[in-house]
């Protein structure tokens, strides 16, 4: 319970601080509510012509599209690795496992240069494409396909004349749903929280995701304490949807998959 107090404290603080006018922020006790809630929210919306909400939409777009495609790609690869015996399987799997250990962020600079050569740097593609490959997601999908999809079912479907794609789409995918939700959530949160990749790739402020937007806010606000309430309000507003998402999807969340993967 002490842990809960510790984790909730900053969240409580930001919610309270959102309600303060600039003057109150620096003069009253931190956890005393203020009077500027609506003003702060109105200022936030007005900043840069509603840029803040645009950042939110960008984040949702990058994380949503990236995570869905990534989950599908991982599911297909995991299914292939779990349910087929073929030459090169072990090699492929070890390669992907090694990919888990590669520190993703170190790749960002060469990825930027390659994107620049393709003329894609600075576009929305440049922040979506690199996050589609998720070696850990493939690893999890393999574990889950092996556990959740019985060989007999696949064989029976083949005998009934279903093509391989149909077997995968109509039979294996639904059986893997729970695991896929976990992979999707992990990747969604991962992309939403990613900072360095968009930081390097994007230069147009209108394409920024919310993390990068708030960061530029703070850089500008360093000498200008009037921006602080805006930053605080922005943080509060951007935390709320993620908290809602976690609470909503908690029921589907299969963390035992993560733990189970260790034994596989």
């Amino acid at each position: 319970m002490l842990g809960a107090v510790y984790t909730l404290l900053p969240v409580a603080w930001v919610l309270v601080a959102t309600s303060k006018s600039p003057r109150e922020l620096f003069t009253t006790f931190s956890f005393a509510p203020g009077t500027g809630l609506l003003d702060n929210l109105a200022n936030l919306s007005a900043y840069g012509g509603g840029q803040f909400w645009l950042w939110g939409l960008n984040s949702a777009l990058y994380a949503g599209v990236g995570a869905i495609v990534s989950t599908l790609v991982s599911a297909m690869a995991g299914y292939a690795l779990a349910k087929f015996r073929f030459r090169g399987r072990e090699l492929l799997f070890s390669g992907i496992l090694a990919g888990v250990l590669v520190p993703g962020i170190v790749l960002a600079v060469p990825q930027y240069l390659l994107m620049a050569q393709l003329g894609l740097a600075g576009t929305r593609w440049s922040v979506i494409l690199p996050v589609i490959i998720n070696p850990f997601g493939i690893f999890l999908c393999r574990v889950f396909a092996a556990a959740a999809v019985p060989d007999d079912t696949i064989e029976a479907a083949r005998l009934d004349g279903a093509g391989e794609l149909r077997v995968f789409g109509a039979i294996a995918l639904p059986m893997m749903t729970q695991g896929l939700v976990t992979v999707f959530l992990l990747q969604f949160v991962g992309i939403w929280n990613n900072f360095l990749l968009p930081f390097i790739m994007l230069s147009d402020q209108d394409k920024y995701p919310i993390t990068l937007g708030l960061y530029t806010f703070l850089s500008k606000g360093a000498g200008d304490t009037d921006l602080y309430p805006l930053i605080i309000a922005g943080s509060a507003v951007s935390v709320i949807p993620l908290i809602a998402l976690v609470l909503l999807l908690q029921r589907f969340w299969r963390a035992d998959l993560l733990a189970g993967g260790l034994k596989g």
Partner: protein
Amino acid sequence: MSTDVVPASQAARTARAPRTRSTRHRARAATPWLFASPAIAFFTAFLIIPIGYALYLSFRGYRVSGGAFGRREETFVGLENYATALSDPEFVAGLGRSLIYGAIAVPSVLGLALLFALLLDHPRVPGRSFARTAIFLPYAVPGVIASLLWGFLYLPSTSPVSYVARELGGSSVDFFGYPALYFALANIALWSGVGFNMIIIYTSLRSVPTEIYEAARIDGASERQIALRIKIPLVTPALVLTGLFSVIGTLQLYSEPATLRPMSNTISSTWVPLMKIYQEAFMNDNLGGAAAASVVLALGILALSLLLLRFFQRRTFGGAA
């Protein structure tokens, strides 16, 4: 049409799919590759090629050729970039700072996660699901925003701690000085990471058959003894995994110090290795140097991960007697 003699059981299939057995066999062999092909394509494009490109760049650099009016030319420079990176005091100091930070952050995140997981697994604990959700919640908060939140809690003019200290007649608490800064940053990592790691450890605790605990209880073991002697050894694989991810994350520290930088002048623009790499690549236009530094960092992470795995493997399997 196929002229093969087909067993009765396969006749129906052959009739529906007018292919010979050998082509069908070939199609079956290609299927897994087709399923894996998008993953392989992305893996190649965004992991293998960038790694190769980084290695290539790390051996390239600019040389001025042909005297005072010569052109700057990009050429092969051997290990020069590596020598420069490793002898650069800022880069080495950055590595040192990440290691100090990691030495504080990783054990405290794992230790606290283990403690919380064990407490949640205790048979009589009030408010279990509330506590679990609350502790997990910060996982969903981006590092940048977590740093902003804590940054304001540290900043003397907005910090509640400093406020109380001033009211009591003291002065503001300086969270951005040394060595407090390390703890301030480690605290952000702790806040963000403890819940995720706790969940992984907790679920691996739940997968242990309860009979083991009952047998231990009948033998007269206390809850604390059960936790120390049975539960902790059983969750070691989970600890190794979470430890590995924490170490990888530590050396990639970037967004937290970068976010706190405007609030404090203690954090230089090259405070951690990644900030240095970013500066070399994009401010100083020194791609070779940045690539070499990236390779050094990646090798460091790899070496540390392997060391960790080796160490725990020995403890888990070799230390049984």
